[in-house]
């Protein structure tokens, strides 16, 4: 019974795309408004597009573009009282917007399935409960049948030992596994269309690659259409046949993905693409490179100013980290004793020269942020030396540490919380200058005004409070604040990760400008390989608390030696439409954890010199 139904559906889905011009889903003049402060404000304006059977459409845009609202409007999931959806959403000719509620409910999860970020499972129910619930709702199976089907679906998305794990809760799974579960639920009723709303945004890059691959495979097997909502041009190239670009609630461009990516017509699309770093496009120069600027009015791009070589190789390094080790105790049990230890940073060494950018790159839990925080002494390392200008930061007392901190500054990830909401920008900027007694208050104010202009803001913005600025502007303020002390080194901990693509490019350009002006060195900590390639002189790849490979940026990207480096580079979605039809075999591996037993002794590591300055840890 069940199998017949399955076969039936599969045949329907396999209608050849070339003979059937009638789209599976046709969105016509979609206009969505929200009530904001008592007034109707339009958030989607006259958006139309089609999705053919078996096709993947990418809907791409920055925050506020309305890409998620589009999905919610199609699914009619917006709160009816505070939102209004006009236009037509035709699923095989039937307008979803005029369906009675009950009929619409039978479409959701059945004809059109949806997946979100992987945190969307109800924490108090088992994952089996979720799958079975969906199956029973739409397919009328009884409990036993539904459970058997749930196990089959879990196997399908390659969740190991499904029989045991079906009764576990979402928090017992890793992010990648949770996303697999959501995909299993989406497949439960063989939907005609799968809407994926940023399903991999919170995942590590190697896990993202697995999930994207899985979606591609399942789509081919099931013959379903996919609407992929993302902000990531790499994901667009990797997954989609056609692309719709949204900007401020309007469709600015639509076309086959290869055409949109290779020869965009519209100014905004060009601007967006110019801001996207492409892995591998930097192999002809050892230096970082600025992003091109695109004029929104004309769509013309001005070639970026070339970067000058700022690195001073002759002098002694400004920062020398030697055998740095940071561990955290995991406490637990009735008596709160130490039960395990996180080996966050294990025997890490590197140098940074004046005017140089060294990037620490790796996935979550690799210890890159802890390395930065150990250098800043925001956490205290267990052992090792942090030499700045010939003095060891690691052993300094309170007073000396304060003085040393003038030389090393940090920029944080979150532009919202890294500024004190109760201080004006002017006060925030002058404070470090004043407390270090670097000059009079007047000198502090003049310097703050000059730096605000230097980071691209107006000097008279100093009297405003942080909440009056956008995320990108706040990050500029943080950068200006760090520069108040004329530091030699700036630790940038995921400092551009939270920013939108185009803003990210501008802030990176700013960082490169400042390096040129002030000869400042960066320790650039990031999970984003493409950005790292863009900004670095040298790169260190971290894995489970250790540097597994370090060397000049060109060497790391063009000639990676460690298997983890290679895996990392391969996993990055590249803005290359040719990747759409590549299938890769990616094993369902999980990110490993640096939590160890108390009696764990780190193994002694052997290093191999690949080329001068390029070292790789022996694997064995």
């Amino acid at each position, binding site marked *: 019974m069940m199998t017949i139904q399955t076969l039936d559906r599969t045949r329907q889905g396999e209608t050849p795309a070339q003979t059937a011009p009638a789209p599976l889903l046709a969105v016509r003049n979609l206009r969505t408004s929200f009530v904001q402060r008592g007034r109707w404000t339009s958030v989607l304006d006259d958006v139309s597009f089609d999705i053919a059977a078996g096709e993947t459409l990418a809907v791409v845009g920055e925050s506020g573009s309305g890409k998620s609202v589009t999905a919610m409007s199609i699914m009619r999931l917006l709160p009816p009282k505070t939102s209004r959806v006009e236009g037509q959403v035709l699923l095989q000719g039937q307008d979803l917007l005029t369906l009675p509620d009950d009929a619409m409910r039978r479409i959701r999860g059945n004809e059109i399935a949806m997946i979100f970020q992987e945190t969307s499972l109800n924490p108090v129910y088992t994952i089996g409960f979720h799958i079975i619930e969906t199956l029973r709702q739409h397919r009328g199976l009884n409990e036993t049948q539904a459970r058997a089907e749930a196990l089959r679906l879990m196997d399908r998305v390659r969740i190991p030992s499904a029989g045991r794990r079906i009764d576990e809760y979402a928090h017992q799974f890793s992010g990648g596994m949770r996303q697999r579960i959501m995909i299993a639920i989406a497949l439960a009723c063989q939907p005609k269309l799968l809407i994926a709303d940023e399903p991999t945004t919170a995942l590590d890059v190697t896990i993202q690659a697995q999930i994207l691959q899985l979606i591609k495979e399942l789509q081919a097997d099931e013959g379903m259409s996919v609407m992929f909502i993302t902000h990531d041009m790499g994901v667009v190239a990797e997954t989609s046949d056609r692309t719709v670009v949204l900007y401020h609630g309007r469709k600015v461009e639509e076309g086959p993905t290869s055409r949109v990516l290779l020869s965009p017509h519209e100014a905004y699309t060009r601007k967006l693409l110019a801001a996207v770093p492409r892995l591998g496009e930097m192999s002809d120069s050892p230096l970082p490179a600025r992003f091109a600027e695109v004029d929104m009015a004309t769509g013309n791009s001005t070639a970026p100013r070339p970067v000058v070589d700022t690195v001073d190789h002759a002098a002694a390094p400004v920062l020398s980290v030697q055998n740095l080790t940071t561990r955290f105790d995991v406490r637990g049990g009735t008596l709160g004793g130490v039960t395990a230890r996180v080996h966050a940073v294990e025997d890490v060494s590197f140098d940074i020269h004046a005017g140089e950018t060294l990037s620490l790159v790796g996935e979550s839990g690799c210890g890159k942020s802890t390395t930065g925080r150990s250098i*800043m002494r*925001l956490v205290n390392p267990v052992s090792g030396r942090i030499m700045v200008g010939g003095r060891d930061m690691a052993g300094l007392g*309170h007073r000396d*540490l*304060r*003085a040393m*901190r*003038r030389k*090393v*500054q*940090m920029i*944080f*990830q*979150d532009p*919202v*919380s*890294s*500024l*004190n*909401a*109760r*201080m*004006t*920008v*002017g*006060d925030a900027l002058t*404070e*470090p200058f004043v*407390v*270090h007694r670097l000059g009079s*208050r*007047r000198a502090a*104010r*003049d310097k*703050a*005004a000059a730096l605000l202009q230097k980071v691209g803001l107006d*000097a*008279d913005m*100093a*009297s405003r*409070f942080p*909440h009056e600025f956008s995320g990108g502007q706040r990050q500029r303020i*943080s950068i200006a*604040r*760090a520069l*108040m*002390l004329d530091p030699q080194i700036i630790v940038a901990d995921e400092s551009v990760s939270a920013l939108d693509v185009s803003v990210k490019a501008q802030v990176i350009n700013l960082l490169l400008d400042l390096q040129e002006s002030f000869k400042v060195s960066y320790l650039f900590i990031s999970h984003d390989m493409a950005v790292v390639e863009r900004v670095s002189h040298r790169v260190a790849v971290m894995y489970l608390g250790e540097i597994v490979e370090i060397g000049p940026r060109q060497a790391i990207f063009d000639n990676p030696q460690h298997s983890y480096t290679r895996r990392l580079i391969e996993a990055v979605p590249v803005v290359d439409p040719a990747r759409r039809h590549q299938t890769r075999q990616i094993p369902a591996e999980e990110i490993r954890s640096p939590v160890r037993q108390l009696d764990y002794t780190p193994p002694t590591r052997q290093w191999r010199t690949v080329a001068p300055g390029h070292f790789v840890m022996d694997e064995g």
Partner: protein
Amino acid sequence: MVNLPETPSIHNAATDRPEAAWRRVWRDYRGSPVAVVMLALLGVILVLALLAPLISPQNPYDLMQLDIMEGLLPPGTEASSGDMIYHLGTDDQGRDMLSAILHGLRISLFVGVVSAVCAVLVGATLGLFAAYRGGRTESVIMRLVDLQLSFPTILVALMILAFLGKGISNVILALIIVEWATYARTARGTALVESRREYIEAAHCLGVPLYRIIFRHLLPNCMTPLIVIGTVQIARAITLEATLSFLGIGVPVTEPSLGLLIANGYQYMFAGQYWLSFFPGIALLVTIVAINLVGDRLRDVFNPKGQA
């Protein structure tokens, strides 16, 4: 700071700051007309309580002014001397209820506010200290807080007063002991959350001295929950004092708060002489509702949901 330089208008930043912050709070607060009315009402109540000795028609505790023959007169009765009208009636000893209520309000507010202020000082200090020191100090203080908060306030206060005996200062002491734990928990919780925020780490990285981080960065950002909870706790302190006094273990008969006035009129209620308990109750109720609504509004203003 002597001559103002012509370069950018960065200079008034420091003077603008507190004013701007409070103006913003007030602008948001004004959004609810009910809350504005309640704030005004609270102001009136405070003034009435402060000026009670000056504005009340008689001194309710000067026995010379009382005439037992004027006892239990219903509201609106004219005094036999003809020089005043008992707008809210008289009690069993011929005391003008309006005057008694104004004086009672004064005592109730005094006890509530003094105990709340002391409790904030003690609790917030211990809470911040616990958050700052961590380790054993923290666990000792916080276990004590947990222990105390697992028992209802009225029980703890009852226990203390049973041992100490009646009296205004004993009631205040009991209320401080009862309330400090709430503030300690709030202060520690907020301080822990705030101290992990990146602006505090940024201040450390910028080499800002510790005392300045605590007083300039941490404390102002911990104040809002303390203010909100403090407002509501004043109302709770007043209620608790009234309850204890009603039970006869709070303030002494010589200094009757609203709670004690209600208790005194309790027995006459069965005879239909409602005004002895009813009017002090209304005064108490209005005060507490006003404080609670102001507190509610402050919470909404300080924790706007859609804040970016």
